[in-house]
């Protein structure tokens, strides 16, 4: 799939390349952006912006990195940029970004999949663990795929995923005990 997209890009047919690229990468780009932003509307905006950037930068893609790696890097940078922009709106400094975003975000009301308890627990995970969980369970992706998306080593992803599952299981147990 990527090869045919690259061929279209090199043939100077960006619109056709994009028409193939979007269905192939939409969920991945959205999932990656969501894992960083924890906000569906913001992730949707970022995903749009990512594809526009990709379309505008087709000429500058030199093929040194894989197409997917290139797109994921654009996605991460765009999402982090959006996160910082949101934090700047409340005029706070860089180290406070995560805290501010945590505080100001009203949680997405999950309109599918239900399970508000689990959404809350996933949202409470440390950033990298949450991103790994979102990407892993969104489409049953391989660890290698997630490592490519997050730009981190495979073993680091395994560690994040393992710790996230342990933390979620522990939190669910604690919730059950509290309820009992």
């Amino acid at each position, binding site marked *: 799939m990527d090869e045919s997209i690259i061929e279209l890009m090199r043939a100077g047919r960006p619109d056709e390349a994009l028409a193939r690229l979007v269905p192939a990468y939409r969920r991945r780009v959205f999932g990656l952006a969501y894992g960083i932003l924890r906000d569906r509307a913001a992730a949707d905006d970022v995903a749009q912006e990512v594809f526009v950037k990709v379309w505008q930068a087709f000429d500058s893609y030199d093929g040194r990195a894989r197409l997917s790696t290139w797109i994921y890097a654009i996605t991460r940078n765009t999402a982090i940029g959006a996160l910082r922009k949101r934090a700047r709106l409340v005029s706070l400094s860089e180290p406070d970004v995560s805290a501010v975003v945590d505080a100001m975000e009203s949680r997405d009301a999950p309109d599918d*999949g239900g399970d508000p308890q689990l959404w809350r627990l996933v949202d409470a995970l440390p950033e990298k663990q949450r991103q790994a969980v979102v990407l892993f369970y969104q489409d049953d992706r391989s660890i290698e795929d997630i490592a490519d998306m997050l730009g981190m080593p495979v073993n680091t992803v395994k560690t994040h995923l393992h710790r996230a599952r342990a933390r979620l299981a522990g939190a669910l147990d604690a919730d059950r005990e509290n309820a009992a």
Partner: protein
Amino acid sequence: MNTEDIEAMQALDNRLRKMFAGLDAAPGFEERLRARIATLAAQPPAEIRDRLEREHDRARAAAARAARLDGLAVAIAGVGGLLAVWRFAPDLARFYEASVETAGPSVVAFGTLGVAAVALWAVLRRFDVDPRTLIGA
């Protein structure tokens, strides 16, 4: 990990899969993207716009430089011509008188006017002035 833990983990996996299965962009994502790109495609990309502006600036600077040099060249030629006339005035007067005697005053007058007209035309063309505009044509 005992059987109970394994079952709890499997249940957690299933809940997470179900929860994230619907995590996707809002409906109409591709239509919105196409509309956005169509709008962008209708206007020159920023890079092209910047490049055109830079080229325009360069061309303007080159034209200004050329105009300064041309002005200087005309001034030098004018001063040189006046100095030459002043320096060789007696020789020119003798040449003029000899020409009038040989060819007649009318031919010399028309010849002089012709040379002056050609010189003026060359200067005007160099400065991109259409000579016809000077006579309102």
